[in-house]
């Protein structure tokens, strides 16, 4: 079946989270909300990583999604979650599609660097343009659902869970499809794929647009969850680095991994910030190094091991 075990786990787990969200304290719900929102961008990076591509500028799309929400809100007063999401997805998707024509021919470090350059161009524009909020960014009005303006964040949390479940299942289906399978094949041997008669460039392009859309959606959800956008934490290269970091932390093993990895990251940062306000970067950076050195499969590989051992 196309809708496989992983997909059912994702749906069940996110449904459980959505229900649990009603009972848990607000701060945990917030952490989960931020984690899940960011996880979508990480899911996009995972799709790229399966082909061996790592983007050091994915905050470009994350920021595009977030700023689309902000500009829709400020200029047109759009507060509906669905319209915002559609807007963010369209903007990041179309721009990703255009940029993809260039980037699909790039690999390795060149891919990483060109992505970085593009994201820094956007950063440079936002930071120097007063109409885009400069360094301050914008606050965003509370989201509404078909005209309803509910109190509290719980409805948004449920919405995020639903969007995440849909995206994760869609990505899982994509990875199980012929085109998705080619992800691994391209990473392994591009020449062979090309000589078997498949356009590597097209396959990479599809992948790139998919990851752009996911990052755009992530930016949109994050902007609404926080009620704020700003260039330094959403578009700057450090934001891109953070996304790649979470990807490594999660591991490429499964579409579930980004969700776990993102929440772990969110908790790691929160507690590091609380316990060692002067050394939280040290803790985060140290974790990254440890994972690269000793745990190349990320958090997911640990989970696989633990679950596997029981059987």
């Amino acid at each position, binding site marked *: 079946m*196309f809708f496989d075990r992983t997909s059912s786990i994702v749906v069940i787990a996110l449904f459980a989270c959505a229900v649990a969200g009603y009972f848990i304290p607000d701060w945990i719900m917030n952490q989960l909300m931020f984690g899940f929102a960011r996880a979508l961008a990480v899911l996009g990076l995972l799709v790229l990583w399966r082909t061996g591509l790592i983007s050091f500028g994915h905050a470009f799309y994350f920021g595009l999604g977030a700023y689309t929400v902000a500009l829709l809100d400020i200029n047109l007063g759009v507060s509906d979650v669905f319209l915002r999401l559609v807007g963010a997805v369209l903007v990041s998707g179309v721009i990703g599609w255009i940029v993809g024509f260039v980037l699909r021919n790039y690999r390795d470090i060149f891919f990483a660097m060109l992505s970085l350059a593009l994201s820094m161009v956007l950063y440079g524009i936002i930071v120097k343009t007063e109409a885009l909020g400069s360094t301050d960014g914008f606050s965003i009005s509370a989201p509404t659902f078909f005209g309803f303006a509910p109190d509290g964040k719980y409805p948004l949390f449920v919405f995020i869970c639903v969007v995440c479940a849909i995206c994760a299942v869609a990505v899982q289906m*994509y990875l*199980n*499809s*012929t*085109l*998705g*399978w*080619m992800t*691994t*094949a391209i990473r*392994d*041997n591009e*020449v*062979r*794929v*090309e*000589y*078997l*008669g*498949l*356009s*590597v460039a097209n396959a990479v392009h599809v992948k790139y647009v998919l990851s752009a859309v996911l990052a755009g959606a992530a930016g949109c959800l994050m902007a609404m969850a926080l009620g704020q956008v700003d260039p330094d934490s959403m578009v700057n290269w450090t934001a891109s680095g953070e996304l790649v970091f979470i990807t490594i932390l999660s591991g490429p093993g499964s579409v579930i991994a980004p969700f776990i990895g993102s929440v772990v990251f969110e908790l790691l940062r929160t507690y590091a910030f609380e316990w060692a306000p002067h050394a939280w970067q040290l803790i985060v950076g140290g974790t990254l190094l440890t994972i690269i050195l000793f745990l190349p499969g990320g958090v997911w590989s640990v989970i696989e091991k633990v679950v596997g051992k029981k059987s």
Partner: protein
Amino acid sequence: MTDSSPILKVEGLEKTFGAVVAASNINIDVQPGEIIGIIGANGAGKTTFVNMVTGYLTPSAGSIQFEGREMIGLPPRKVTQAGISRSFQVSQVFSTMTVEENILTALAIASNTGLGALRQMMRPELVSKCNDVLERYQIAQHRDHTAGTLSQGVRKLLDIAMAVISKPRILLLDEPTSGISVEEKFDLMDIVMTPLREDNVTVLFIEHDMEIVERYVSRVIAFYQGEIICDESPTEALADPKVQEYVIGTSHPHAKKGA
């Protein structure tokens, strides 16, 4: 020679890298069903020729017509889709995948176009086709081995098996027996050539071993310094003094046996 129109017509083909001439004035007509051996010392331009025909390199001048259609400027995948396939001197397999997955990947690409690419990868009909291929190339016992760990011979077979899956009308094999022990060479060539002959596929293969050349081909083309110095039947070619001097005299030592 038959009178039917050539399946592949190469005219005035030329390739230069800066000041280095890798191929010049290459003219070949290939008739359907022919099996041609390409010989020549290292650096004589054999692989450059194959690379040009399969779209990996763009020639500096000349034309390559396949079934009457110009091929120059087409990327490799278009050439493959048109009906020309190839294997590689250094086997190009998916070295992190199992043998079965390698074949499945090739089958999936060959069977999917456009939106079909969104269909599920692991479909029953692909798996059964895969079994046929594994049987035909006698690599079924390696089904679950990772391709990167295979012996040279099995890897060659896998490489060629994948190249044939797209049902090419011309197949170019780049040194199919290189790095393989003398005993295994003939077995490998038998496994490879039998189905190709059955399907009447035109084959061009680069080879250093003159025994192999003698046994399998109907025609020999010899390269020297980027040019064709000989294009004749195997017996005539191997007796040609130019071939004797520039090809066999410089080739692998054991190849002399064939002379």
